[in-house]
Structure formats: structure tokens, C-alpha cells
């Protein structure tokens, strides 16, 4: 496309300009070109992902001097054994996984109809507005949203005011409040992949299904859902993994309950026991590895 000016000046600049020399060199050496292109992201990947994870793994095998708070770099399996065998950690792990699963289920149930409406029913103009509306909560700070839920769920709050006429009451602070708040927080991350997945379902398939006599539910169950399954899994990865690591929400609306994140936080912040915190942090990592391996088999990772 820029061949005309280049050929015009070919005689004088082709061999002399240093920039040209470099580009000629790069065009002839594909390996070097690739190396330069990837070195920055690779450095980042190595630094942030691999080094941080490796450091975490190594710290888990150290111990801490109880009085001075210094980390002692002697190798020990104590932390891992404590985490694997302690009943406290088993209870909290089960509770955390339970909360993460419930949050994921709630999110999927809420996201499916919204995403379906956005992708298949709404006009293109409304579609754009809805996408913005779904993303809107992400503009506000996480903390503000959680504190908003704290006041909604408090005594005499909006939740109570709404539930009272029907004989109900606010769930108060506790695990239900945590699940509601987390489900609210991660909803956009679940809606978007499902919406993207529905966009990929051709309308002609829906029409063909109804031409062949299938009713709405049959079409949804036999045509839409199988195609949508990877997108749902992709969305669930977000809500599940984000819930698994959260500790702020449960601290603010969770009453006296604690999740894995709180144990990590207490051990880093309060107990100053980084090695034990690292050992606890390996639990969600292990759970996510299992989850992602299972998700990979469904092909959901292609939908992220």
C-alpha cells in the first residue's frame, strides 16, 4: 500500500537508514521478531502469574516465629497438614464452596432470561441500551455497592420494608445476605458471556425448530441450551472463582460468618502468619484447577 513512495526513494534510503536495516533484519529472522514481540508480555506473565504463584507455594512450606513475627525459612509440611486435617478449615472450605455454588446458580437463573431477551427479543437499539445498563453497576465502587446492601438488609432497611407486607422479614446479616450481595456483584460477568453465546445461536435454527413443530420449551431445551451450555459454564467460572476468593462482602454483610478469604486475611493481617495464609490460599487454587479442568472438557473456555 505504501509501495509507491518507497520505490521512489529506494535508491538512497534502502541501504542507509538504520530503521530500515532493523526492519530488514527482523523480516529475515522470524525467531527474533517473535522474541521481541513476546518478551514484554512474557516477562509480565512470568513475573505476575508464575513467580507470584511459586512464591505463594514456597511460603506455604515455611513457618513463622510466633513472637517476633519473622518468617523462618525452614522447610516444613506443618501448614499443609494443618490445613488438610483441621476441622476448622474443612468446615470453612465446605461453607465457601457452598456459597460460591449458590451464588453461581442464582446468577445463572437470573442471567438466562435477561440474556435471552437482550439477544433475541430486543431491538438493536434497546440491545445497546441493555448492554450499557448491565455494565452500569461496574462503574460504581465495589465497596459502595456492598455497603449499600448492608443498609438495604439492615433492620428497618428497604428489604424489611418490602418483605413486611407479605409477612416476611429481612434476612439480616449472614450467609443469605452474603449470597444475595455476591450474586448481585457478579451478575454482569455472567450475563455477558451468556448473551454472547445466545448471539451465536442463529435465528434460523429457532425457526426451523418451530417449523418442525417444536414448542417453545422444546426449542429451548433441545436447540438453545446445548449450544448455550459452554457459555453458561464460562459465566459460571467468573461467579464461582470470584465468590471463592471474596472476603470483603462476607465481612460487611456476613454477620459472624467467615469464608476462606477471611481466614487468609486474618492470618496475613491479624496473626501475621503468612505461611499458613499461603497454605489456606492453596485450597481455592486447587478447587479452581479442578473446576477449570472440568470446564475445559465442555469447550467452555473457548467462550470466555
Amino acid at each position, binding site marked *: 500500500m505504501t509501495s509507491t513512495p518507497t520505490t521512489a526513494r529506494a535508491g538512497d534510503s534502502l541501504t542507509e537508514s538504520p530503521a530500515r536495516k532493523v526492519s530488514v533484519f527482523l523480516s529475515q529472522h522470524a525467531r527474533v521478531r517473535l522474541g521481541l514481540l*513476546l518478551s514484554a508480555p*512474557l*516477562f509480565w*506473565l*512470568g*513475573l505476575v502469574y*508464575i*513467580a507470584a504463584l*511459586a*512464591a505463594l507455594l*514456597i511460603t506455604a512450606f515455611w513457618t*513463622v516465629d*510466633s*513472637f*517476633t*513475627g*519473622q*518468617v*523462618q*525459612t525452614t522447610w516444613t509440611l506443618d501448614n499443609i497438614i494443618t490445613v488438610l486435617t483441621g476441622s*476448622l478449615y474443612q*468446615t*470453612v472450605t465446605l461453607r465457601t464452596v457452598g456459597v460460591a455454588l449458590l451464588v453461581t446458580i442464582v446468577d445463572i437463573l437470573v442471567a438466562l432470561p435477561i440474556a435471552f431477551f437482550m439477544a433475541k427479543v430486543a431491538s438493536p437499539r434497546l440491545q445497546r441500551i441493555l448492554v450499557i445498563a448491565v455494565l452500569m453497576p461496574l462503574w460504581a465502587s465495589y465497596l459502595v455497592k456492598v455497603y449499600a446492601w*448492608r*443498609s438495604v438488609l*439492615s*433492620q*428497618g*432497611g428497604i428489604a424489611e420494608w418490602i418483605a413486611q407486607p407479605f409477612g416476611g422479614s429481612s434476612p*439480616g*446479616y449472614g450467609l443469605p445476605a452474603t449470597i444475595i450481595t455476591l450474586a448481585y456483584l457478579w451478575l454482569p460477568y455472567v450475563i455477558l458471556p451468556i448473551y454472547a453465546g445466545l448471539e451465536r445461536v442463529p435465528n434460523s435454527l429457532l425457526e426451523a425448530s418451530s417449523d418442525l413443530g417444536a414448542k417453545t420449551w422444546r426449542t429451548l431445551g433441545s436447540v438453545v441450551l446445548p449450544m448455550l451450555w459452554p457459555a453458561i459454564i464460562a459465566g459460571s467460572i467468573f461467579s464461582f472463582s470470584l465468590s471463592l476468593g471474596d472476603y470483603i462482602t462476607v465481612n*460487611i454483610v*456476613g*454477620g*459472624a460468618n*467467615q469464608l476462606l478469604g477471611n*481466614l487468609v486475611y*486474618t*492470618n*496475613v*493481617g*491479624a*496473626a*501475621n*502468619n503468612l505461611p499458613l495464609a499461603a497454605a489456606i490460599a492453596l485450597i481455592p487454587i486447587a478447587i479452581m484447577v479442578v473446576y477449570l479442568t472440568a470446564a475445559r472438557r465442555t469447550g467452555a473456555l473457548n467462550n470466555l
Partner: protein
Amino acid sequence: MRTTATHRRTMLAGLALASSVALLSACGTSSGSEGSGEEATSLGEMEGSVSILAWPGYVEDGSNDPTVDWVTPFEEETGCQVTSKSYGTSDEAFSLMKTGDYDVVAASGDASLRLVAAGDVAPVNTDLLKNYDGIFDFLKMQSWNSVDGVSYGIPHGYGANLLMYNTDVFPDGLTSWSAVFDDASANAGKVTAYDSPIYIADAAVYLMATQPDLGITNPYALDETQLAAAVDLLKAQRANIGEYWSDYLKAIQAFETGDSVVGTTWQVIQNYVTTGNTAVVLPDEGTTGWSDTWMISSTAKSPNCAYAWLDYIASPEANAQATAYFGEAPSSLAACDFRDDCEAFHAGDADYASKIWYWSTPIAKCLDGRTDVQCTDYSQWTTAWSEIKG
């Protein structure tokens, strides 16, 4: 094609691995900070800035409330610009001091000894502080601000952990901690407690009065049996807890909405609650409390400004402002000239002050002098606290 791709992947993985290994070995296995252990003998030029780590309400420059400002006069007087950070729990302060970013820290007794042991704070030459003389004698050279006769800071103020209750729920008032322990089930789900392992000492104070058979003489010196008794008491309490608080703003809000109706508190929380239906009391069993110490980091970048701050905050006027704002007794009688509520806080009343069990770090060597038994240390308390919360 296939082989090149695999080869390339191996190369990339190798690169990533090599860089991470290089990083890790660079981080090495250093054993943390080394305390300088030297106290200053004279003061030099002011450095122009000082960074302070303190409880909320200790370093007020008017940004929270324009009428509350004792930092600006200090800045004008010394030319040291103050940057401050407030922390929520002693444990948080202890980890933050490990960063070495702070010149000065206001530490309670459950952090101060640990800071000294970890070498994070330096001895303080009190001869260089002209306001040290006026400070109450019963606050000087105590177990939480000195080690082996060496002073590690200047006392700030002291106060008690009080019992707060909702006057609509308890119209007759309360006089005993039993409202949050043995009788807590009457308000199940609306009891609150302080979220820190040091709260175990509050249970121990209650046990000292209700179960003398346990033989607890100091709530920070608990052997295995005594700790187990305190843990049992707290586990029973856990069933009735609505929420634990460590953020005092959360405590204020919970009492204002009525989500909490009874529990442990600080005077400052009572001062902030706007609904007017709460009251505080120092229960008959006695209580835990704090006596805070201004300490200087062993890696302070501005030691002269740090000394200047220690001296300034102990001066009667500044000390009166700071302690009045937080809701605690000041460190000197002279400060009472600038406050009209010294009576309420029993300032200078050595007898009253001795009834408060000041926060102290539990250590294996029993603080009450017992030598026939090992006491439980803070890490055991931390583990126990996680188990209590479940």
C-alpha cells in the same frame, strides 16, 4: 510444523520458568528487618516530613472535622509535614510496621512488645522529650512500653473497653458482662464483640469473677486449661453473636440501626452514635483496656521529626485535644487544664487505672509470674480465635 510448535512452547515455558526462578532467588530467604537497637543521644535538623501510623482519631488535621486539628500547629511549629495512616486493629498495625514505611506508630500493649521483639521499633531517649516529666508516673516504664528498663516510647492516653447497650432493650441498665456471655441468648443475633484474638482476655476477665476456681490472676496469662475455659465461653457466645466488629464505623452503624443491641465498645463509638438510645458502662467484673505508646520505627527516615512529634503529642494542649477526641484519659495532669471531662475518664486516678487490664501480648512465659506452667502465646490465641468463629 508440529515439532516447531512444541519446540517453541518449550522455549517459552523455559523462558518463563527461568525468569521466575531468577526473581525468586533475588528475593532470597532474607530474615526480615534488623532493629538498630540504638537510641538517639541528640537531635539534629528536622527532615521536613514524618509519616505516622496510628489509631483512627489520633492524628487529626481537620480533614475529617474542620474544628478538630492538632496536626497543623505541629507542622507550622516544626516544618515537618505529616502524612498519616490509621489502622483498625493492633494486628494490622503490627503487619503495617513491617513495611518500614512509617516513622512513628501509636501502639497498644498487644502490639508494642511484639514490635520491640521483632526489632521494628527503636528505644526512645526520654531525656530528649521535654514533656516526658509531666506524664503520670503510673504510665511510665510499664511492661507494655519498656523492656529491661529501656523505654521504647512515650505514653499517649489510656482507656477501657466498655459495655455498650441499647437503652430501649435494657431500660434498667446493665452492670455486668453476663449480658454478653451467660445471658447473651436473650438477645441472640444482636450481640456484638470485638473481632480480635485479644478479645479472649475479655472472656478471661469475666471468668476471673465468675469462676474463681480456674485461678486466673491475669487475663493475659492463661495456661491450657484456662484458655480452654475462655474458648468454651466464647464458643457459647458465638451462637448469639450477630456480627463481630473491628471497624469502629461498622459498630456505630450496627448500634444505630439496632442490628446490635449489646456488646463491647469504645467510648469514641458512644460519642459518635447519633440515635441517642445507647449507653456505656464499666461493668463490675472490671474490664480490659489499652494504654497506648508512641514509638519510633527502627528504620525511621525522619527520626528528628519523629522525636518532635512524640514531644508535641505529649504536650498538654495537643494531648488534651487528641485524647478528648478519641474518648480516653490523657497522659498528664496538665492536659486536664485543656479538658473539662477529665473527671469522667478518671484521669490520674491510679487506683481506677489499676482496675483496667491493659492489653498485653500473651507470651509463653506467664505474665503473672507463674513458673510451674507454660502459658499460651498469641499465636495459640489466634488459632483459638479462628476456631471460636468457626
